[in-house]
């Protein structure tokens, strides 16, 4: 969950972004810390959870919830919701962001960035409540819409910022060598924007995994069901299992996304 809003993150004129990057992953130590420690931690937590549930005497309600079948069901629901939401976000926001930075629409870029910034203030719980109420329908679809709207603006914003920060001189050199405008977009601008777009997508994935939990409020299932059922029926073990699993899932996805981000970043940057 790095900066959703890189340009607003730090005061202007302060070379803070590179410093922050340095602290958070560029140095060897930080990289080791991040990429080696996390799997160990997550494995540890999972084992603890297993032992905790194992050592707990389950009543009939708990036994119906805390078993492999139910868990796999909920996990799949969760991953499906977060996964589809992320795919939809990438499919919508990246092309839209690209379009909004083309010369014809370039004047709209700052407006779009502002709208995206404001839009990010919309609370996820609000969106999760909004779509079912408007659509008079609960379940997967309104949950999907809520997640997409919640995270698309961030990816849109990062796409625009990413394309915007590409060095003019590099574009000029490409055009000067006779590359077509599309050629420059696909071979130069987008590859050079990849790190920032990827950071946006990573944030979106992690947010989606987190917000998918709220799907339980609108009958979209997900691991959130453990939390809400555990809470409603006052079964602490179920609640703790749900909360811990969600946390492990989110951190695990963030870890994988972090590695993907490193691998997919063009070399030479």
């Amino acid at each position, binding site marked *: 969950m790095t900066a959703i809003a890189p340009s607003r993150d730090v005061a202007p004129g*302060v070379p803070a972004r590179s410093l922050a990057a340095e602290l958070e992953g560029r*140095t060897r130590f930080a990289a080791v810390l991040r990429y080696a420690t996390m799997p160990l931690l997550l494995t540890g937590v999972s084992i603890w959870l297993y032992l905790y549930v194992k050592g707990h005497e389950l009543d009939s309600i708990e036994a119906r919830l805390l078993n492999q079948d139910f868990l796999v069901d909920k996990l799949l629901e969760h991953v499906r919701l977060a996964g589809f939401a992320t795919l939809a976000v990438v499919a919508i926001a990246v092309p839209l962001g690209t379009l909004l930075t083309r010369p014809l629409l370039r004047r709209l870029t700052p407006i779009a960035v502002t709208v995206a910034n404001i839009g990010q203030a919309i609370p996820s719980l*609000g969106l999760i409540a909004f779509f079912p109420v408007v659509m008079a329908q609960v379940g997967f679809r309104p949950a999907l819409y809520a997640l997409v709207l919640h995270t698309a603006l961030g990816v849109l914003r990062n796409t625009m910022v990413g394309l915007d920060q590409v060095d003019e001189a590099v574009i000029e050199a490409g055009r000067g060598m006779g590359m077509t405008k599309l050629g420059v977009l696909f071979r130069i601008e987008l590859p050079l924007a990849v790190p920032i777009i990827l950071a946006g997508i990573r944030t979106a994935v992690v947010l989606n995994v987190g917000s998918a939990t709220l799907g339980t409020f609108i009958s979209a299932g997900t691991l959130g069901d453990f939390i809400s059922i555990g809470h409603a029926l006052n079964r602490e073990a179920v*609640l703790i299992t749900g909360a811990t699993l969600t946390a492990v899932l989110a951190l695990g996805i963030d870890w994988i996304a972090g590695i993907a981000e490193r691998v997919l970043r063009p070399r030479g940057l």
Partner: protein
Amino acid sequence: MSDFREYLSYRRDHLLEQTLEHAQLVLYAIATATVVSVLIAVLVYRRERVAAVALAAVGALFTVPSLALFALMIPIFGLGFRPAFIALTVYALLPILRNTIVGLRSVDSAVIESAQGMGMNRLRRLVKIELPLAWPVIITGMRVSTVMTVGIAAIAAYINGPGLGGDMLEGLARIGAPVALHMVLASILLVVALALLFDLVYLALGKLTTPKGIT
């Protein structure tokens, strides 16, 4: 639309109260998170590895889904304001801590050296020189944190915390009734308005409190 306006005026006192509660929860969390972050930052910023560890730990907490974190508060702190406040404080840490460390680290070493040369001790340097110079960056971190926390605070309602999230869940419970949409819409708009208001306040505060001479 006119229905919605009617709803707003009819429920004005209630909405205002919820908004104020929401703002209060956020402010408490941010104030606490700022104090904690600055303390941690002051302890770690000079040692790069320790700083990296602190940031990684706070970053991991930040990544825990909000509903999960709020839920985990229940077995420890029960329901109500206290667990909501603690969970939000935990979320608010990362942007502030990161910016504080970055801000402190980017203070020009020549400035620090000359302060040292004038006989300022470590504490005095920190209070008189480094923190004021890092302040614009710190306040930006607070701003990012606040805008984000305003949104997450809605979920506090799930553990019977205060704020506008209550109306969202309430609206959800009344799916089908016209008032459901009004409740959800009004609470969303108020959360967004609150976020924007905070944003503006921070902008002004940043301008007012930034030492003259730093741009």
